[in-house]
């Protein structure tokens, strides 16, 4: 298919439909409202379901219901809305249902602002809801990558029977870029006969399927937790995605950055290269599972003297970077928040300062 020019939010909506998801329940919130707006007219065209719920809480339990019934389903929201959905996300994870959530992050905490931010890293990767669970977290840095990640998210959610979250931000959602919907990412829905509540008559079975998140008897809860843990370990082996930039040089410093911030860092690295300073960048595309080995190897390269985590937050991913670098290199953090996106010049100045301080 030819490339077309699309707004990030609309492309995300279209990608879900191309991926075979015909159920959307949501609630509008800036800066992701265009996804709902787009789907409100696009879903009826493909005989899909579009429903604007009375709140994010209601929408998220509609997701739970549809997922339990074995349907491909997704919702989108922005930071405060994802907080409201977090209870249901925990339930969906506990009940082992596949569903896709998209968080077009805005500044927080509280109602915060409506401009781009990466303040929900902790929420997405470390919890958000209660209990021992993880989401598979993917972070795109372009409209094209958003489309690809959304299309990949549905088969991944079904493979693990676990919620997947796409962590974009206001800039990715609001920006227009040329985009292509790759046919090879279209996937067939998986066989759900073993677990989904599709009806015994319908699937010619004499075994009822039960979807639940309450485990009171004996050690059934521990068994469920161990089952979840095994899935997260499998994700760490099979689903890690990352990209590198300028990492084939003998860089003196390494930037770890994701999403929108990585685009600014890419320009900053080019500017530094013109001045004869080599800086490498590793960009996690999956935030959970975090590309631990890749970041570690890149940080431990003999030429590399310092590792900097660049974020649109007051220091969240830096904790994971510190964890994997294991104090073998100094780890610093640089970030802006509150809807401000830093300029390449600010990053160039910060990298020069950091490199000078750790020579």
């Amino acid at each position, binding site marked *: 298919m030819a490339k077309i020019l699309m707004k990030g939010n609309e492309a995300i909506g279209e990608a879900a439909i191309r991926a075979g998801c015909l159920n959307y329940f949501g609630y509008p919130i*800036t*800066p992701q409202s265009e996804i709902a707006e787009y789907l409100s007219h696009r879903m009826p065209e493909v005989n899909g379901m579009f429903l604007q719920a009375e709140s994010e809480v209601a929408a998220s339990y509609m997701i739970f219901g549809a997922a339990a019934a074995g349907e491909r389903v997704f919702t989108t929201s922005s930071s405060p809305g994802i907080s409201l959905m977090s209870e249901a996300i925990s339930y969906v994870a506990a009940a082992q249902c596949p569903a896709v959530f998209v968080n077009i992050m805005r500044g927080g905490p509280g109602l915060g602002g*409506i401009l781009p931010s990466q303040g929900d890293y902790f929420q997405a990767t470390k919890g958000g809801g209660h209990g021992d669970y993880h989401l598979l977290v993917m972070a795109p840095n372009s409209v094209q990558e958003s489309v690809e990640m959304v299309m990949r998210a549905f088969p991944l959610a079904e493979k693990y029977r676990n919620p997947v979250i796409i962590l974009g931000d206001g800039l990715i959602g*609001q*920006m*227009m870029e040329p985009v292509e919907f790759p046919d090879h990412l279209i996937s067939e829905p998986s066989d759900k006969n073993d677990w989904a509540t599709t009806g015994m008559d319908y699937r010619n079975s004499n075994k009822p399927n039960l979807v639940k998140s309450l485990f009171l008897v004996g050690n059934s809860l521990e068994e469920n937790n161990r089952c979840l843990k095994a899935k997260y370990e499998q994700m760490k082996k099979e689903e890690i995605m990352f990209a590198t930039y300028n990492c084939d040089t003998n860089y003196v410093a390494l930037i770890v950055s994701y999403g929108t911030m990585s685009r600014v860092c890419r320009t900053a690295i080019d500017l530094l290269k013109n001045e004869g300073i080599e800086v490498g960048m590793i960009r996690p595309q999956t935030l959970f599972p975090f590309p631990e080995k890749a970041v570690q190897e890149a940080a431990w390269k003999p030429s590399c003297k310092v590792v900097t985590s660049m974020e649109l937050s007051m220091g969240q991913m830096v904790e994971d970077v510190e964890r994997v670098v294991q104090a073998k290199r100094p780890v610093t953090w640089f970030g802006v928040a509150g809807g401000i996106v830093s300029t390449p010049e600010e990053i160039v100045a910060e990298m020069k300062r950091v490199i000078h301080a750790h020579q």
Partner: protein
Amino acid sequence: MDYQYQIDADRCKGCGLCVAVCPKKVLSLLQKNNSKGYFPAYRVDESACVLCGTCCIMCPDIAITITSIDN
């Protein structure tokens, strides 16, 4: 020939690209938000504007238009 300069404030997301690109530094962001909550661009000094159309080309949301009005 006269020209009409228009910014569709409700379409503007306040990205500031027009402000940065304007050769005459005519544009700025309003301190009052539009219906979507963004702070839209406006012309601070209309008389300094030379109607070059750079802002129209730059605007990613096609919110700025300059049209000719035939007398």
